[in-house]
């Protein structure tokens, strides 16, 4: 009953309700399956054998299973293992170093702007014509407030 090439339906687990083929018999209780499911060692109790069989040798690869499954009219995805990529550790350290001076620069700019904002207000209240004393930028701000 459970020999390589036998089409089965998975009954238990998250791959249940999916078709598979027995690729290899490991034990009296366990077989290796592949197909719509993941390539996996499963207990015989977790699969239901069907009448249909496929032409597959013992220990067939994933590519052979994909070819054989076309006889059933089903196309399978070819799964490839992901390439391992290195973690970008160095970049993280650089960012922290760059952030610190930026904040300091911003604070300084704010302080400068605050100082400049204070000066025209006092002058506008105290002195009536600030054109002679203050630079060009401060002259532009004064008429808006009035």
């Amino acid at each position: 009953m459970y020999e390589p090439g036998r089409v089965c339906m998975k009954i238990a687990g998250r791959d249940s309700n999916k078709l598979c083929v027995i690729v290899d018999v490991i034990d009296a209780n366990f077989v290796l399956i592949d197909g719509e499911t993941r390539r996996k060692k499963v207990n015989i109790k977790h699969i239901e054998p069907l009448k249909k069989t496929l032409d597959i040798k013992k220990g067939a690869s994933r590519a052979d299973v994909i070819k054989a499954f076309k006889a059933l009219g089903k196309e399978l995805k070819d799964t490839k293992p992901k390439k391992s990529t290195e973690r970008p550790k160095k970049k993280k350290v650089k960012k922290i170093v760059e952030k610190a001076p930026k904040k300091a620069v911003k604070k300084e700019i704010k302080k400068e702007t605050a100082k400049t904002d204070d000066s025209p207000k006092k002058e506008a209240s105290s002195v009536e014509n600030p054109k002679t004393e203050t630079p060009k930028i401060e002259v532009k701000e004064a008429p808006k407030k009035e």
Partner: protein
Amino acid sequence: MQHKTKSRTFRRVKVRTINGTKTTYQRRKPKVGTCPETGEILKGVPRALPGKMKTMPKTHKRPERPYGGVLSSSATRKKIKNKARELEL
């Protein structure tokens, strides 16, 4: 008297305080999920209040298989077995 305290829709919980005990009122838990075919209690389905269930991820709320959270595992096996035997390839 409040409706909350009069009826038994809310659960009464005694809380210890410095002056003695105080009764507080909390929502009752929802019923346990059961399989409609076998009558079993569904495993992997939490008895949390609907507000808390909203914040949970999907994988925490039901087992990850066909009919998960609706039928028990034994009922799904029977159902899929019968489906497989009638299948024509």
